[in-house]
């Protein structure tokens, strides 16, 4: 294990990873200060004969400083996070006219409905492939998540995407892959005895390859 996040392949992942490491540095500094302080005090002020503790009930000044400093840092972090979140999940963040797929989870498989040759979902030429999610890189795509039975969670680590699929709801998410290759969807929400093996193949193509694959599938149907 190398204490790193896995390869990132999405535009959202760039900002998510950046935010992750910003927090890692901030909390890392706080971590070192606190732990070093505890160890230092533990050694320096350990019991000695004749040593009398300093009698004090506190210091307003110190307390104001260590209330205000974390408050300011956390507020800035919260506002920054909120901005990034709005870019990813906000109501207006969902791209217009992006290629759309329906992903329907059920115990213990993922059924993906493809838009077919017209490039539009909910039309007659849609086709369904079980446990295989192909999509093109370098353009935003939308996934409309549904579930037929219990709650599942659509998780592709390399895309930094995770969203629960809830029965009775259709939840749209979007992402844009920045490279091609073969990966996996994992289910991240406990969904029953096959939860651990509820995976599906993810294949990210160039647009041309994707169109060819899609045409081949449509012809095969």
């Amino acid at each position: 294990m190398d204490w790193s996040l896995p390869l990132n392949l999405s535009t959202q992942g760039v900002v998510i990873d950046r935010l992750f490491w910003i927090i890692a540095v901030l909390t890392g500094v706080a971590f070192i200060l606190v732990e070093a302080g505890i160890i230092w005090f533990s050694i320096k002020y350990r019991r000695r004969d004749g040593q009398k503790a300093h009698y004090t009930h506190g210091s307003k000044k110190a307390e104001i400083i260590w209330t205000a400093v974390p408050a300011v840092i956390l507020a800035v972090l919260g506002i920054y996070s909120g901005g990034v979140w709005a870019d990813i999940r906000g109501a207006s963040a969902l791209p217009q006219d992006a290629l759309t797929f329906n992903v329907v989870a059920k115990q213990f498989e993922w059924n993906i409905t493809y838009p077919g040759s017209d490039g539009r979902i909910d039309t007659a030429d849609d086709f369904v492939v079980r446990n295989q999610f192909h999509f093109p890189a370098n353009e935003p795509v939308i996934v409309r998540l549904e579930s037929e039975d219990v709650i599942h969670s659509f998780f592709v680590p390399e895309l930094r995407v995770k969203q629960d699929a809830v029965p009775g709801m259709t939840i749209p998410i979007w992402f844009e892959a920045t490279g091609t290759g073969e990966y996996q969807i994992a289910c991240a929400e406990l969904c029953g005895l096959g939860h651990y093996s509820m995976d599906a193949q993810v294949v990210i193509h160039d647009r041309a390859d994707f169109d060819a694959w899609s045409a081949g599938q449509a012809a095969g149907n």
Partner: protein
Amino acid sequence: MATIVAEGTGQAILEEHHPQTFLRKYMFSTDHKIIAIQFLIYTLFFLMIGGFLAIMMRYQIAWPDQTLPGGGILPESMVASGYMLPEFYNSLVTMHGSIMVFLAIMPMLVGVYANYLIPLQIGADDMAFPRLNMMSFWLMVPAGLLTLASFFVVGGAASSGWTLYAPLSARPDLSGVELGQIYWLLALVLIGLSSILGSVNYITTVINMRAPGMTWFRMPLTVWALFITAILGLLAMPVLSAAGIMLLFDQTIGTTFFLPEGGGQPLLWQHLFWFFGHPEVYILILPAMGFTSEIIAAGSRKPVFGYHAMVWAIISIAFLGFVVWGHHMFQSGMNPMLGLSFTISTLLIAVPSAIKTFNWMGTMWRGNLHFHTAMLFAVGFVAMFAIGGLSGIFMASTPVDIYIHDTYFIVAHIHYVLFGGSLFALFGAIYYWFPKMFGRMMNEKLGKVHFWLTLIFFNLVFFPMHGVGMAGMMRRIYDSSGYAHLQGIQDTNALITFAALGLYASGFLFAFNFFWSMKKGKKAEANPWNATTLEWQTPSPPMHGNWAETPVVYHGPHEFSHPDVEDKDWLAQNERPDVVSPAGGGH
């Protein structure tokens, strides 16, 4: 000055002092001290069970392709031809969490220490309602029996996670578990009732039964923490009970509160659960913070740094605890626009936690630190809780939470808070108040070995889990070998399991020390730690009724190293500085 009220005669108290049968004295006792000890034995038992479930889980995670050692003695429905079944693994995941939260940590923090410490630290002779108090323990007994029995019914124990997300929890046809789930929900309703009765008792006792002079801002921080915790339990548990009953109806009589096919809403369960669940997190940590403050003050021989700030931090944590529940649901399908408000409230709640951490360090600063075992655990609590608090910032940030939600990063975080936090403080509390409870000291040498082993193994178990989570390992999976992105962490998973075995084994060192010291430990004085709060100003263990004579309180709870006091570095709450050291004069 405070008003002192005296009513009636001593009749009611004197009546309680008849010789009692064994059954009245130790089984159906209404003495808060005996009830606390009953809770202590009960919760230690469930701590051992909950830990054992975790060990079985860890074995499966580390070596998914191997047979479970000794698995042969378990029924075929759990372990088939030597291999653990995924449905049993899901039960282990679920019941480890459920047992640890509801039958071990929460009743140990509250059932044991609210019961034991509140009357003693405020100078009361017992709880306001001793019989309700007895009932709140005896409700936990059927709850525990139902929980244990649920493993052996058809379909096994509940397997939908401790969070019981519907529809999985509500649909036996989808989870494969029917009776086990019903047993657990019934247990949960009993636990809820027990906890509510307990809360009514604790709150009333603190409000109305403080000794003369024990004003609100002279109460020890433990009492403050337990008082606020009781308020959280009082207001949060009934919501869980209501939700649990609706879930039980979905499961048994065919209603559809949380089932979309009947128009119900799965997310409603999550809102109700986390409306309870987040205050529950603070129920699990505030008392631990109280114990820590007390032990660190006594161990450092200094007053608590910023006592008032500590009180206000507890109060604001409790208040904010009711408005942050949505941060468990960022990826649930809840309206994303709610994300920002829950992020802000969640980051806000980190501020009082930070204040508390710095104030504990401030208490140690320029102290005269006595590192007995309790102090080691209390300082360990600060060091570990800080890590749990800091890792919480990652998931409070909604975009980062997209990636780490439902991964081992969360598992690491919750264990730094609940084990490195709550349980470290509880170990500290047990070592610290053991002499008062049993009249004997625990063995310090064994205690220190137990501390260092626990600290080392704990960090070896849970620190690497952050990395496992960063690598993307999902929670609650029975076998990660099918995932390409998880191939590189299998060695780490094995290391974690070895360390978990060590951690569990060091628990037995503690158990040995506990039971051995109860019989053979060195006799304890009334005040072995030279501490200031009232419970130390009466014999160890205290008599029935607690006090030879009701104490009168003259000042705040942690007057260590008072400059006006000569000859000793502490001043009990019921001692006046001008009486102890007449030369010194008033403060």
